């Protein structure tokens, strides 16, 4: 558990960065770094964060950052980890990438790092589209959402990346949302205490990309979890644990606050509700089946 009293006053994502008002990613990263502390090096591909981190020679980060090419973050990190291993240097290597960098252009390298069991903490901040290039769809854009490249709304279901990562049999996989900061920080703390490949997938609502008011970021982060469209779970030692968060609400409550879903038909909303229910049931079955799994190390 993490309580507010044990949080450091040190800031590692500094004020004055050029992120949009209400940016969910900045909230997540600020908390992640408060848990990880200064002996951390971030490896980061192109993405929103690589834009708002500042232009040379400025920096919005209080930890060293290596910018990689888009999709190469896991392999840059692999090299860095290998160098530290052979040199006997102890630094937490953290890859920080968006949904596009992780699920699309970087998936091969992320998968390879997971399969090798690289000693790295991988943080995916999922704002569900290519936001810094002006909102284009990624494989993690949800069904029905309008983007610059899907002006009539996306027709495909969101790729279930956390489960794909779990299927690599890595040390730790968790989903988290900026709607639940202490749950998020608890998971980061836990991941930091483990070794091997650790993956945390954080939902980071995006006011301009999703089309909602800047004061609703945390609220959207909560509603996404409560309606079941973004369930919170952990996978450790082959066991999946779902986190129930209050009573469930209909997905409509979540969708109707966002402009990207404004053209959804009633049928589509019903379809989303049905799929979300099915996906949750699927997770419950996995939870049940894996509850008896015993795996060492």
């Amino acid at each position: 558990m993490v309580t507010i009293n044990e949080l450091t006053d040190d800031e590692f994502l500094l004020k004055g960065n050029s992120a949009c008002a209400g940016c969910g990613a900045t909230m997540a990263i600020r908390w992640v770094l408060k848990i990880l502390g200064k002996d951390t090096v971030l490896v980061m591909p192109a993405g929103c964060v690589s834009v708002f981190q500042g232009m040379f020679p400025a920096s919005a980060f209080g930890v060293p950052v290596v910018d990689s090419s888009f999709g190469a973050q896991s392999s840059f990190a692999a090299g860095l980890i290998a160098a530290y291993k052979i040199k006997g240097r102890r630094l937490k290597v953290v890859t920080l990438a968006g949904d596009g960098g992780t699920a699309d252009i970087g998936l091969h390298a992320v998968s390879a790092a997971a399969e090798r069991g690289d000693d790295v903490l991988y943080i995916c901040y999922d704002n569900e589209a290519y936001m810094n290039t002006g909102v284009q769809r990624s494989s993690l854009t949800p069904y029905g959402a309008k983007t610059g490249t899907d002006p009539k709304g996306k027709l495909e279901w969101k790729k279930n990346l956390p489960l794909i990562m779990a299927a690599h049999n890595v040390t730790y996989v968790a989903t988290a949302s900026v709607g639940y900061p202490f749950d998020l920080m608890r998971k980061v703390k836990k991941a930091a205490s483990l070794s091997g490949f650790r993956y945390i997938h954080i939902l980071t609502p995006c006011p301009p990309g999703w089309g909602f008011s800047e004061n609703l970021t945390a609220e959207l982060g909560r509603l996404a979890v409560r309606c079941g469209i973004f369930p919170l779970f952990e996978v450790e030692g082959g066991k999946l644990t779902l986190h129930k968060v209050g009573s469930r609400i209909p997905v409509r409550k979540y969708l109707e606050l966002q402009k990207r879903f404004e053209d959804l038909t009633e049928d589509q909303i019903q379809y989303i509700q049905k799929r979300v229910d099915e996906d949750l049931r699927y997770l419950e079955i996995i939870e049940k089946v894996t509850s008896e799994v015993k795996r060492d190390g």
Partner: protein
Amino acid sequence: MVEQVEVLTGNAAAAYGVKLSRAQVIAAYPITPQTTLVERIAEFIAKGELKAEYIKVESEHSALAACIGASLGGARAFTATSAQGLLLMQEMLFWAGYGRTPVVMAVVTRAIAPPWNMWSEHTDALAQRDTGWIQIFCHNNQEVLDTIIQAYKISEDKRVMLPVMVCFDGFEISHTAENVLVPEQSDVDSFLPPYNNDLIDVEKPKLLWNGVYPEDAFKFRFIFYEAAQRSLSVVEEVHYDFYSRFGRRYGAIEIYGECEPKVFLVAMGSVASSAKAAVDVLNREGYPVGLIRIRLFRPFPTFELQRAVEGAEALVILDRSLSFTRGILSTEVAGALYNAKWRPKIFEYIVGLGGAVVSHKSLVEAVKHLLARVDEKPKGVVWLKSEG
């Protein structure tokens, strides 16, 4: 100084070079004809003869990305590839070059598909000439081993800090065994000190490679350009240092046969080996022919080449590469000589693409044929077929 004679293929010679250089991080993806090189390194590591981390990556793009990361962490990094793998790496090639990471890579040259072909051609390596890498072409196995060691010394020099490609022909060199003198580890250690340039400091956190505005970008490019310029003299220094310790002399170019001939053949890699045999025959028969072997392709040794060709009537360029309508070596040589005081005629030959044999006999015939017409104007690019 004691050296052991071993019978080694080019790939094995490269692996010995890597071991003697004490590379610390290897990241590679298998591709023919590079495979036996990286397998040999894996064997060295497994036997404890080389203390290194071997990252088994899922692609060449990641292989070089991992080497860049390792280099940032202060480790000496190595990778190797060929053809398609080199092309897949291209984004990372620029990153390593402009990022000033001293990675060394063996490029076992191979033809690019389609059609699928795993034999040698230089187009793969030469197509990367603008990526910010120093490029050295070797023509025998001893040179491969020696050049890997030299490459780290050049690459890690503070005045340079640029990656180096050590290029050698697939199969003709990579899979052909020769006697190779393997230096003592202690001699290599005194030539090549350990690399320790860890750029990441948590006490002074910085962003590395974040966005720059145009004026800063222009400055960064100029800093790169200055390092690239300086690398030419550092290569010379390293060649001299290597010669003084190991007794084997290398240069940016090598002149073979007659020094002041009427005609110079110009070639790289294993084509130069065939050309040497052709020059031997031609010189024995009294033909005034020499060879200029280009060893250093990036930075291109413009002034050395200008000096070397003074007095020659013609150059016969043997190009194992193709850039649309001309060979890449030809355009490079022609460009280097444009402002020279002495400009010989240039006869351009395309040879050995896709691994086609470049026999010394075919070269002898071609040169004799040309010598009879050397006063005529060159008539464009000639494709030289070879009959075994």
